[in-house]
């Protein structure tokens, strides 16, 4: 524990604690939410738009549902959104980047020009277009964001592979007759996959932020499932008079995105230090 704090620094450790807390909240949502039924979507018309109070800590929404419970349930959607977006993106981007970087030549040219096309779009716009075409929904919004996300991993993986491929030890393996699949599995994938996975883990924050923007636009998961972006949007009609409706989920998004960013910085600094020392 002490060692971890030392390695991540104090801000990094706090960020890690916050991220861990959110993960726990997502897992335990039905047990810790004060009003599990409302969290899952059941209306509670007798308590519409109430300000924060002892019984409703963060107030209620226009259907009288406890905002805290909604936020707790929304954690599940947001975190899975973030995770699945980077997972899908990694699943497409890593093989594309590996193939382009390792084989080079026309394979590289074709794959990277294709990637260029995806990168030519301002990212959110392509996501909006995709989401609109696929229609709203949980999986659709994830696919829509992943479509704009994977090219970055492809580029990253390719750049890593290009460096590795030029490494004399990889060339030595090739010259001693080691087959392509074996080189990729034994030398390239471990050295590329690991930094890329770390990067992806840290991208869960920004990915979740993008997904929140989509659901704010009405392109995310459909009600009554709780979703932070959609809550901010729904609360906009009652803003600023019933400020808590939008502000509570908005703050939540900000806090988790901030935690991921700070954690990412802490890890990057640590990694940078290590690689410099070994060079």
């Amino acid at each position, binding site marked *: 524990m002490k060692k971890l704090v030392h390695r991540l620094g104090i801000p990094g450790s706090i960020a890690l604690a916050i991220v861990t807390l959110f993960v726990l909240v997502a897992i335990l949502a039905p047990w810790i939410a004060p009003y599990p039924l409302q969290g899952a979507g059941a209306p509670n018309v007798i308590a519409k738009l109430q300000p924060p109070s002892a019984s409703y800590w963060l107030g209620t929404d226009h259907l009288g549902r406890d905002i805290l419970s909604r936020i707790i349930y929304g954690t599940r959607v947001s975190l899975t959104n973030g995770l699945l977006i980077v997972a899908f993106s990694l699943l497409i981007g890593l093989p594309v980047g590996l193939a382009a970087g390792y084989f080079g030549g026309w394979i590289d040219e074709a794959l990277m020009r294709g990637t260029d096309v*995806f990168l030519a779009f301002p990212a959110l716009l392509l996501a909006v277009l995709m989401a609109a075409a696929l229609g709203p929904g949980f999986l659709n919004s994830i696919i829509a964001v992943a479509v704009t996300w994977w090219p970055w991993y492809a580029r990253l993986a390719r750049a890593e592979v290009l460096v590795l491929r030029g490494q004399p030890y990889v060339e030595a393996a090739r010259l001693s007759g080691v087959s392509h699949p074996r080189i990729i599995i034994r030398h390239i994938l471990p050295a590329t996959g690991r930094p890329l996975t770390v990067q992806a883990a840290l991208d869960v924050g920004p990915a979740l932020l993008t997904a929140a923007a989509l659901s704010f636009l009405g392109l995310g998961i459909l009600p009554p499932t709780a979703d932070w972006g959609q809550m901010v949007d729904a609360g906009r009609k009652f803003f600023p008079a019933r400020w808590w409706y939008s502000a509570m989920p908005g703050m939540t998004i900000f806090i988790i995105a901030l935690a991921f960013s700070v954690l990412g910085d802490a890890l990057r600094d640590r990694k940078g230090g290590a690689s410099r020392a070994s060079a």
Partner: protein
Amino acid sequence: MELLRYILRRMLLSAFVVVGVTFLVFVVAQVVPSDPAALYAGPRPTAEQIEKARQELNLDAPLQARFATFATAMASGDFGISYKSRRLIAEDLRAYLPATLELAVFSTGLALLIGIPLGVVAAAHQGRWADRLGSFGSIAAVAMPTFFLAMILQLVFAQWLGILPLSGRLSREIAISAPLQMITGFNLIDAILAGRFDVFGDALAHLILPALTLASYPAGVAMRLTRSAMIEILERRHIVAARALGLSEPRILFGHALPNAMGPALTVIGLSFAYALTGAVLVEIIFAWPGLGRYVSEAILAKDFPVIAAVTMVVTICYVVMNLLIDIAQALVDPRVALS
């Protein structure tokens, strides 16, 4: 010579990308949606209406023929008709594009003006409190959801302090009683051209909040990139060499380090501009800004695919052109770029 070859190569690549973009937009807008004809035919269409729409939209033609039609139409600036309003999309774009560009350019400038100097200061004070504070500020700016920031700014500056307008692009009185003649479509410039300084002030006041919202994220990114670029540059051997040659510190900082930071700074411009273009979708809804973002978000709700496709095309081409210009500028400030 190298430079010319480089520019030609970049242009060729951009042209290819535009073709690819067109294809992708075509696929997403015309192939993925389940039944465009039903949408085109209007609410609760009859079978005949749908059949008629299919023919009008040429949906029964083979895919490559449909793409050819789509691409030629796009190339000639004919974006078709909106499913919903039945208006010519090209005309709508002409009205909305300048508003979005004005917002994008202004917020990009704002982001650079805030982010780059802060990055330089943080790099110069690396590890000290100014750096820590600035770095945390930049992380917070990057982590803040745009749509939420917009609402907070509205609350503070329009509702509580009441010093800036809540939304819109011009005050109603001006828009109705003495409308501005559209020349460039940029209100700020048109106001100056017309000598209407009251309008200029009004337009500026309306611009500040949405532009500030849009500038927050790219300013954070700009600060971080500038900071790390400056730190890296200041450690380079030729900077050490310049010290060993007895050059003064200001000369080293501004004459030797800063020119090397121009490359990263240009990258930041590109990123900021891209962000401003897309963030517009979110910001324009909240600030009721009559631009492409609001236009497209309305189209999304109506599943108005020709509009969505047209906006995506136009904005993406703006972005591609911007990137091309930045790449060329990169080669001009750093002659090595053209060689790679």
